[in-house]
């Protein structure tokens, strides 16, 4: 069975939601404490949302130095799927595992509401179950979600197709304002060149069960789980 480790930092608060979402899609899920140094044979690692270390100094700035991050970096360097959701995305940027940074929302307020995004890149560990261009409604809940990067980095992200999710403009079908935080190029999520590291501001774990009213986020859990199981099956057959 696919093993998914959810890393808990002091101040993580989406850890149970993420654990449950991953579990409900057929993975063996467990928590790993930030002081641990071992991911216990995780196939997939998720850094959940929250306010690690109270967002002191900058969001994600302290969590990046947690003892577990060495193992997280090794997991990703070996090509292991690694997803950062919200605060997890902020941590991945601070750890320079993804480029750019997430700054205070342009409107200064904490934004907690559903938004519409498109899946721009499906060749990643966490979006391969989506159709290219799929439009999802996912909740965001953050005060620091304004993605910024140097002009060179932005050009590279766009040219190499590393923007995974983008806030989309309001339409008749969507009552939501696009871009809840002023993110550059409406960027809601990005990945590394290999596609195994993905960081997103929206919360797929809050949109992966009919009970929650939204199911569009389920692909972020089914994608890595089905990829892993396919690889495992292929290995068994060899």
């Amino acid at each position, binding site marked *: 069975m696919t093993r998914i480790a959810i890393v808990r930092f002091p101040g993580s608060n989406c850890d149970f939601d993420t654990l449950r979402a991953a579990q409900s899609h057929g993975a063996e899920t467990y928590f790993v404490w930030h002081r641990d140094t071992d991911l216990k044979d995780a196939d997939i690692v998720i850094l959940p949302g929250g306010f690690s270390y109270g967002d002191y*100094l900058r969001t994600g700035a302290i969590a990046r*130095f947690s003892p577990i991050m060495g193992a997280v970096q090794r997991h990703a360097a070996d090509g292991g799927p690694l997803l950062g959701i919200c605060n997890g995305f902020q941590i991945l*940027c601070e750890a320079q595992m993804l480029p750019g940074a997430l700054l205070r929302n342009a409107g*200064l307020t904490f934004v907690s509401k559903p938004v519409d995004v498109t899946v721009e890149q499906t060749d990643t560990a966490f979006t391969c179950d989506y159709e290219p261009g799929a439009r999802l409604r996912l909740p965001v809940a953050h005060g620091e979600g304004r993605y910024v990067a140097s002009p060179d980095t932005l050009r590279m992200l766009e040219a190499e197709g590393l923007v995974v999710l983008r806030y989309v403009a309001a339409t008749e079908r969507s009552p939501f304002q696009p871009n809840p935080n002023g993110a550059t190029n409406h960027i809601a999520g990005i990945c590394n060149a290999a596609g195994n590291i993905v960081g997103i501001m929206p919360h797929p774990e809050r949109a992966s069960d009919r009970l929650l009213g939204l199911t569009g986020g389920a692909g972020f859990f089914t994608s890595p789980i089905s990829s892993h199981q396919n690889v495992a099956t292929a290995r068994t057959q060899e």
Partner: protein
Amino acid sequence: MTFRVHVRVMPRTGLLDPQGQAVEHALSALGFAEAGAVRVGRAIELDVDAGSRDEAEARARLMCDKLLANPVTEDYLLAVEED
């Protein structure tokens, strides 16, 4: 020797600084119409044990590069004084 290091971390020029804008609006609402281009940053002070002032500054610079400032979005200024 112990040196007192003052670090001033500011949002990089050209980046939107919504906190600075909000403070500017508040100042203007208070009647300080002469205030403009407000930017909000962060001040950090720390003691650094080092053999010389240059060494203290070099170590503090390393601390800024690694943690105290975000190289993507912030610039910093250092001032070192002997305790």
